[in-house]
């Protein structure tokens, strides 16, 4: 294994035009973004609000959107540009796989879901016949805690959001990709099941050596899961680094605002106390009982 980085993104910019053909303005949805995903398998999180440009970055890595400027190199080879030197579509899809936010929209309601897994295996020539496709699907499903028999013949509405998202992960794993781009993969999943999906990602990184680009607005799961975090606001990366360092010592006001908005257990929002004192409410429940200490092992 060489030390070629999985992904090198340099000065990536995407410009959109607003308004008419002659008048109108343009704005940069993504503005001069640079980062590198090294060869060691890991989770790289991009955190930001709606409109921060995080999804546009993901779409450019997935080749769904062309960059306006800058370059993306996958294993040292360009993703876009002239046809003869960029990675061809077929190879690209074996190397990079997506997981989307809403699994109920990612699969059709009129096809049993296992058809998607079989098709992925056949289309990407992981399998050359149906029996092999079933075998490849089953192997992928087992690595996410499911099995082919368990899902065969069922349609999306017969699954919970958490199960269906596991199936999306299994589908993405079929070609044994180098990189999975997951765009808000747990925001539609129930809070109680969220952690099991997040832990599954970590397990895949460690056991199968797949890297993840994890796009999210949730700083707490990004912190929990990732090796590196980039925080985006209005198209730019405002802060990036190792999650523990960023959260222990955030340099940017925006990062602090984002951290303060997460509804966590422990400290109460200071604005709430202000509202309470304004309307003469004693903050009874939070002064009487100290916050619990729980470990995440459970």
């Amino acid at each position: 294994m060489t030390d070629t980085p999985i992904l090198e993104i340099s000065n990536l910019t995407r410009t959109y035009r607003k308004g008419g053909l002659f008048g109108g303005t343009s704005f940069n949805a993504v503005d001069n973004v640079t980062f590198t995903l090294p060869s060691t398998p890991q989770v790289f999180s991009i955190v930001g609000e709606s409109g921060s440009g995080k999804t546009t970055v993901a779409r450019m890595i997935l080749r769904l959107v062309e960059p306006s400027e800058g370059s993306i190199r996958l294993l040292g080879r360009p993703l876009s540009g002239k046809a003869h030197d960029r990675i061809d579509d077929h190879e690209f899809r074996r190397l990079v796989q997506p997981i989307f936010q809403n699994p109920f929209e990612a699969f059709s309601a009129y096809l049993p879901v296992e058809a998607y897994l079989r098709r992925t295996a056949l289309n990407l020539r992981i399998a050359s016949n149906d029996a092999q496709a079933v075998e490849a699907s089953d192997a992928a499903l087992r690595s996410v805690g499911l099995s082919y028999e368990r899902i065969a013949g069922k349609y999306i509405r017969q699954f919970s959001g958490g199960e269906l998202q596991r199936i999306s992960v299994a589908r993405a794993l079929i070609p044994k990709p180098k990189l999975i781009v997951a765009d808000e993969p747990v925001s539609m999943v129930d809070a109680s099941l969220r952690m099991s999906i997040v832990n599954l990602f970590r397990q895949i990184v460690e056991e199968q050596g797949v890297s993840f680009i994890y796009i999210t607005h949730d700083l707490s799961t990004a912190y929990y899961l990732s090796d590196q975090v980039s925080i985006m606001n209005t198209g730019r990366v405002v802060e990036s680094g190792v999650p523990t360092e960023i959260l222990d010592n955030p340099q940017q006001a925006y990062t602090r605002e984002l951290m303060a908005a997460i509804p966590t257990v422990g400290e109460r929002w200071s604005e709430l106390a202000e509202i309470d004192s304004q309307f003469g409410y004693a903050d009874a429940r939070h002064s009487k009982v100290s916050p619990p200490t729980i470990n995440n092992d459970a």
Partner: protein
Amino acid sequence: MITVDNVTVGYGTAGFIKAVDQVSLTINDNEILGIAGESGSGKSTLMRAVYGDFSTGLRILSGTVTGRFVDATSGQVIEAQSKNFAPLWWDQLSYIPQGSMSVLNPLMKIEQQVVDGLPARERKGGSHALRQRIAGFFSGFGLEETVLDAYPHQLSGGMRQRVLVAIAAFVNPRLILADEPTTALDVVVQKKILLMMVEIQRRQRNSLVLVSHDLGVHYQITDRLVIMYRGQIVEQGPTAEIFANPQHDYTKNLIASLPRLHGKRAVESMGVLA
């Protein structure tokens, strides 16, 4: 304010599918009550039964939902069962349904949608004065007057959500039922909306019932908490006590599965990467 007594609610006419199973709880005056639980646990069904919306084929099999409201003008006490709540909607109680992205009428401007549900007493004084009042109220939610002339598709998700909260609160109801009002919103917008809801509740001293599967939200803003699991209430009590000392295994799991900043990380708990 509302007493739910041993109520079993479900769907279907031929067969009966139980969604809420023998649930009892009270909604007190002047409190924020949280209802937590995963999808399918019966939170939304219970909410609809309390609101008295039986249009979806919902049926109360046994038990009662009794409301006790005080008429603002006459001072009269109205006591009613939830199936008779409809005349009280948008007067005594209002409802913020789940999925704000799609519940506003796409063919109606926002102003009309606010006016549409208003009780007669709120409409006095002519349409211009009413518009001024609505615009003033909206500005408290960070919504400009131009929003009133917009169609829903011209607004962002967070704005639509704020519009819904504003519509529900404008009538000054004694009880607001909010079903996942901030789910799928970014945390910064979510925090703004939640703080707004707390402020309204504190100012009007009414009752707010908040349904959410996010325990962090409940910890932050609710006074009392009800945990539902498979149609039943497994635990209820003051929010801080439940968090400090969860009794039921399901509650313990829910609390333990909350991600937190500065807590343990996956990398460490799996102990592979050193």
